[in-house]
């Protein structure tokens, strides 16, 4: 059962990483990257590294996601040919 857990987690990691790079829309890619970070937290937990899992949960899931989403919004708002409807 351990082996099945690890293999499934590895497959989910690889698939989300691949979709992150392959989706055409940058907003979707960022959300998939957040999902990748959450899955990576589980991977650190499986690798008996709770301190790294703690750092990844705080940084990879919270901080990096917020930074990337903010950057996407800022780039989109300043793009000239597309009027981002600011509400």
């Amino acid at each position, binding site marked *: 059962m351990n082996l099945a857990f690890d293999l499934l987690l590895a497959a989910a990691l690889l698939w989300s990483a691949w979709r992150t790079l392959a989706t055409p829309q940058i907003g979707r890619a960022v959300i998939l990257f957040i999902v990748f970070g959450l899955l990576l937290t589980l991977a650190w937990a499986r690798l008996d590294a709770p301190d790294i899992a703690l*750092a990844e949960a705080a940084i990879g899931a919270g901080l990096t996601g917020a930074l990337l989403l903010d950057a996407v919004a800022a780039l989109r708002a300043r793009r000239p040919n597309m009027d981002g409807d600011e509400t």
Partner: protein
Amino acid sequence: MSSGLIFAATGCLLFVLGLGGVLLLKALLRRILAFNLMGSGAFLVLVGLAQRDGTPDPVPQAMVLTGIVVAVAATALALTLARRWQALTGREDIGRVGDAGSRRRSKQRERRKAPR
């Protein structure tokens, strides 16, 4: 096959995926994402291979912990640079300056081609 070995192999594949993304993708945000994936792959290899016969080795774990924090700082810096680059030049990718890879130019070319 232990879980360390499985995740080390996953880390290898992630590194290759991220490297391909960094080399092949044009948009800056995507390159930053690919760079982060590459770093995560390297971290997985470090921790996974350090876990011989069940007992984890604390030194690579400390290195990876530092590396994660540094990666976030580097990502924040890269995002700031990308925003500044877009504010200065209006572009979201880098190529050679004056290259036809720019998004606005290819749009113009399409528009020129369209009426015929």
